[in-house]
């Protein structure tokens, strides 16, 4: 079994254990499927591979755990959507995903508009944004131009100072997991 890791349109060769399987106008980054139990270290190793790749080419990460029999199966699974995936690559090219979560810092309770105000400010500094469901007052992903990441983080810090009633966490950069599928899904 092989694991499907990411979609790319860059044809340049990959370093072992990664291989590139052509599928129409895009390619699939694959690796031998890891048979071991998925633990945190295994996930971070997989993520490292993707993040190294992300620094040198545009990619769309594939949902974790996607496995097929062989290269032919990989091409067959991806090729029908090649056009759509090529368009998605254009949307994310030159950008990374940044995660922001905000919870109440304690007393006093944050006003109802605070998380929304934070989100709107950050959305304005990003190419695209996606709100996620979660236990926090705000859980969002932002697609940020490579060159704008430092500015984005500075904006997060400024917002944290402006909103001491919130506890804000910002992590990244991540491959564009939240922007890989078209929004209409």
């Amino acid at each position, binding site marked *: 079994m092989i694991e*499907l890791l990411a*979609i790319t349109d860059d044809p340049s060769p990959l370093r072992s254990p990664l291989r590139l399987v052509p599928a129409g106008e895009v390619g699939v980054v694959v690796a031998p499927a890891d048979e071991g139990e998925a633990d*945190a270290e295994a*996930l*971070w190793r997989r*993520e490292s591979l993707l993040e190294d790749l992300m620094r040198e080419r545009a990619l*769309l*990460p*594939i*949902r*974790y*755990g*996607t*496995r*097929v029999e062989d290269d032919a199966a990989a091409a067959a*699974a*991806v090729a029908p*959507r090649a056009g759509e*995936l090529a368009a*998605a690559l254009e949307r994310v090219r030159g950008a990374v*995903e940044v*995660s922001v*979560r905000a919870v109440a810092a304690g007393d006093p309770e944050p006003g109802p508009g605070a998380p929304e105000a934070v989100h709107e400010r950050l959305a304005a500094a990003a190419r695209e944004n996606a709100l*996620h469901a*979660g236990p926090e007052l705000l*859980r969002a*992903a932002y697609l940020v131009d490579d060159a704008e990441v430092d500015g984005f983080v500075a904006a997060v810090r400024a917002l944290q100072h402006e909103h001491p009633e919130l506890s804000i*966490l910002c*992590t990244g950069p*991540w491959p564009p*997991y*939240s922007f*890989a*599928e078209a929004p209409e899904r």
Partner: protein
Amino acid sequence: MSAIAEREVALVDLLDRLLGGGVVIAGEITLAVADVDLVHVSLRALVSSVETARPK
């Protein structure tokens, strides 16, 4: 912020992405009992719809 705590919160963000994000190619589900894989289900095989001819 300790390195361990940072790693943990980052893991939450990573898992959120791995489980809920990314391109969805044909998926597979493994059903297991007592840790023994028994049934392998392909999503593509499962999803089909029944159409009837429109009444005249």
